[in-house]
């Protein structure tokens, strides 16, 4: 019941509930159920090419249905932004639908719609991606349009001013009027100081208010180039045909300058941080985040896989410890969860979260979550629990192949965070190799108070007469 996909902002909400749900499920699975986060396929089934202008092309054939998914991934997102400029990646993503030299505003969407396609885009902390889902023969259309907006975008100041207002409405819908999203945003801002994960993907409202079209121009010039992009195509296609097509459509896009940016790894945390967010709400809520390495930064990869298993021990299904003990056993929690994104680009958090059950306090909830952390540090995880997690991972790798979109998405993510798509082939074996001792070891090493941030949502009465003070963002 907790809204899970906090880090994603996107171009538009699908118009049917079913589509929205399916769309969100991709993210939920990928970002949070670390265990189910990557598909594993035989290495031979992914075909990799590189164009002369530096663009990488990945093709994953899947002939089950006559459809194709094409995604273009740029290595840029809110974690690349800095103070004062937050939200620029996402606003630019919106502007990518607003016209190029060849195609007027909205034409991209209209053409894809005429072809029976579905399309959208999403911005995350670590990447910005654009996609079309089409009947397979329509792939060239997607390529022509996508290649065009990679280098021919027109950033019209008047359209920009309008689109910015749309994004502000998006922020109000997704964050400002959602007490738990608001808590989550403040939580990340407190946990990270100099790292790019300090920033919300949607951007701070005041930064949005002062954003201008020149900021977008600079951002577009800096990051939108074939040498910073990956094309992923999955579906009923022949890899060499796709490569030939990619050369034809993307080959002429000029190479950009060498990509160079500062990594901004978070500096060492010295001591626990605690914040309170007070907002009109009915239910209290707690977030506890421990600083942890991820696959892209770990000195020892084994630790990362052990952290992933640890997350599964706590929350890998309805039989896992949180459901068993916190929801059913002691009935302390109405909801409890653990999450860890091992495919983040830079060091991230392992997050525990909970909503107390009626009659229980946020303090009890915190104590219970801490109790589970202590238990991981002192006791070895039961062999049966480990086996169960491994069974789920094996099954999940089969289930994932039911979605062409998902298959393309896992390739895009791994490529965009710098790990390389091949990493997915290692996942099951690495998880299988995790031992109970390793889980205890990473719990002891990383789940420590000095690296902990705690945020609680303190519900204020929902007083109809106390409207929030809203800075009215009139453009200057």
């Amino acid at each position, binding site marked *: 019941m907790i809204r899970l996909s906090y880090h994603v902002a996107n171009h*538009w909400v699908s118009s049917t509930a079913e589509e929205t749900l399916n769309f969100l499920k991709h993210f939920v699975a990928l970002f949070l159920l670390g265990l189910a986060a990557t598909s594993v396929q035989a290495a031979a089934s992914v075909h990799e090419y590189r164009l002369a202008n530096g663009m990488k092309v990945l093709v994953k054939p899947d002939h*089950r249905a006559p459809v194709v998914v094409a995604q273009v991934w740029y290595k840029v997102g809110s974690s690349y932004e800095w103070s004062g400029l937050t939200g620029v990646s996402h606003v630019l993503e919106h502007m990518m639908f607003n016209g190029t030299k060849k195609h007027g505003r909205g*034409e991209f969407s209209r053409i894809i719609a005429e072809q029976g*396609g579905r399309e959208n885009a999403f911005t995350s902390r670590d990447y910005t991606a654009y996609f079309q889902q089409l009947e397979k*023969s329509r792939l060239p259309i997607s390529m022509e349009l996508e290649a065009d907006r990679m280098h021919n975008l027109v950033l019209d100041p008047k359209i920009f001013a309008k689109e910015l207002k749309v994004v502000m409405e998006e922020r109000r819908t997704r964050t400002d009027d959602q007490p738990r999203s608001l808590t989550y945003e403040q939580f990340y801002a407190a946990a990270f100081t100099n790292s790019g994960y300090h920033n919300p993907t949607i951007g701070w409202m005041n930064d949005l208010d002062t954003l201008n079209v020149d900021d977008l121009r600079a951002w577009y010039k800096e990051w939108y180039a074939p040498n910073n992009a990956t094309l992923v195509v999955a579906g009923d296609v022949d890899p060499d045909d796709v490569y030939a097509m990619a050369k034809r459509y993307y080959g002429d896009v000029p190479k950009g300058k060498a990509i160079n940016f500062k990594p901004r790894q978070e500096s060492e945390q010295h001591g626990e941080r605690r914040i309170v967010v007070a907002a*009109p709400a009915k239910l209290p809520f707690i977030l506890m985040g421990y600083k942890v390495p991820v696959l892209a930064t770990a000195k020892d990869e084994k630790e990362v896989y052990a952290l992933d298993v640890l997350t599964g021990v706590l929350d890998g299904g309805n039989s896992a410890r949180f459901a068993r003990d916190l929801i*059913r056993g002691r009935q302390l929690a109405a909801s409890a969860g653990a999450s860890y994104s091992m495919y983040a680009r830079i060091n991230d958090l392992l997050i525990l979260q909970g909503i107390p059950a009626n009659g229980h306090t946020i303090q009890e909830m915190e104590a219970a979550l801490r109790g589970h952390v202590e238990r991981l540090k002192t006791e070895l995880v039961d062999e049966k629990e480990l086996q169960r997690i491994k069974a789920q991972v094996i099954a999940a790798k089969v289930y994932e192949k*039911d979605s062409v979109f998902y298959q393309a998405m896992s390739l895009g993510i791994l490529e965009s965070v710098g790990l390389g798509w091949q990493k997915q082939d290692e996942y099951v074996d690495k998880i299988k190799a995790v031992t109970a001792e390793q889980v205890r070891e990473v719990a002891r090493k990383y789940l420590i108070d000095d690296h902990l941030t705690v945020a609680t949502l303190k519900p204020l009465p929902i007083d109809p007469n106390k409207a929030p003070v*809203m800075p009215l963002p009139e453009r200057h």
Partner: protein
Amino acid sequence: MKIPTSYRPLIILLIGIALVTGYAWMSGDMHEPVKVKGLAIKSWTTTNGARVYYVPATSLPMIDVRVVFDAGSARDGKQFGIAQLTNELLPEGAGDWNAQQLAERFEDVGADFSNDAERDMAVISLRSLTEKKWLDTALETMATIISQPRFDQKDIDRDRQLQLVSIEEQQQSPEAIADKLFYKNLYGDDHPYAHSSMGNKATLTSIKREDLVAFHKQYYVGKNAVVAIVGDVDEKQAHQIAEQVVGTLPAGETPAALPEPKPLAKSVTVRQVYPTTQTHLLAGVIGLERGDKDYFPLYVGNHILGGSGFSSRMMAEIREKRALAYSAYSYFLPMHVRGPFQMGAQTRNDKAEETLKLMKQELRTFVAQGPTADELEHAKRNITGGFPLKLASNKNIVQYLAMIGFYKLPLNYLDKFNQQINAVTLKQIKDAFKRRVDPDKLLTVIVGADAKQQ
């Protein structure tokens, strides 16, 4: 037998594109018409009267089984929330197993189990590998959950508390508040669609164990069940699976038809002041039932009005031209008896009035004039061209099968879908909207802060 569905030649679509753009793909290798296979659905009835819908899918070693009962909150009677609570309690204890054991039985074999109750349907679904030992365990567990729930008092008490928290959860969401008000005021107090499937505190606390047992006994029966199966099993196995998961249920009876909802006699506006930065706006009327004769004209018409994202009029007027909202939409939700037609948008409080006016104006214009020929052509291309995407995963297919079965749609519903879309005319859309959507008998729901106070 697979029934091929004929499609308009791609070249016609390309001409359409050429008018707009004239691009390189014109000279490409795209002269083949789109070929799309229909679904070869097999259907039969189990010994106890459950209707089964099956499609083989052999390329992955997995199976989806979705069991649907006419046991959603429309069957609550006066005990609002009982359908949801009954459904919620199924995997909390069944046969010899408690909730922990049931969950372990699924998760030990990597199976995904889920369940939920909406207004019409109570759903139980399973996804499993077809590896025999694993599948047998998963199916045995699912069958036990469906046929032998225990309804232990401690589980009832706990799940009731969780449902009460979910109700509070809805109370802190302006979107959920608006939705609740919409159904309540559109259907009036007596209709079974009027209340939220969560129920309310008073009704939930009054539900006793024997009520839940009785609800299960009446509605979780063979004649009230639909089983959809998609996966790597042959027809003989599919027969066995259907018998295994629902075959031991008593045949029981099909419940009586739901009452026909009555449209509003005049326009009604409901306002709830709520301390948010945005105002949530909903407007609508009572719309369509599944299998409705006006379904296709209204579906295509709505696609143009507010059902197709950026191609829709609402998105163009509210978002693209005026930047009033991030999302603006409309939809028909066809149900057993007429479900709602709803338009919606969220905007900052000081723009609520303007946005609402626009929404209503768009509706009025659309009902009076209908779409243009270009809009209709565009919508048809979008809907029919996107057909292959509908059937691209087992997950989608199993959902369609369950829907076709539950609402007793023809087995060739999907095969005929594009044909039906292509047959829709401007006149039919205009005529259907005029008869079915009256802008002068509209329900409007407004939830947000009063802009004048800011």
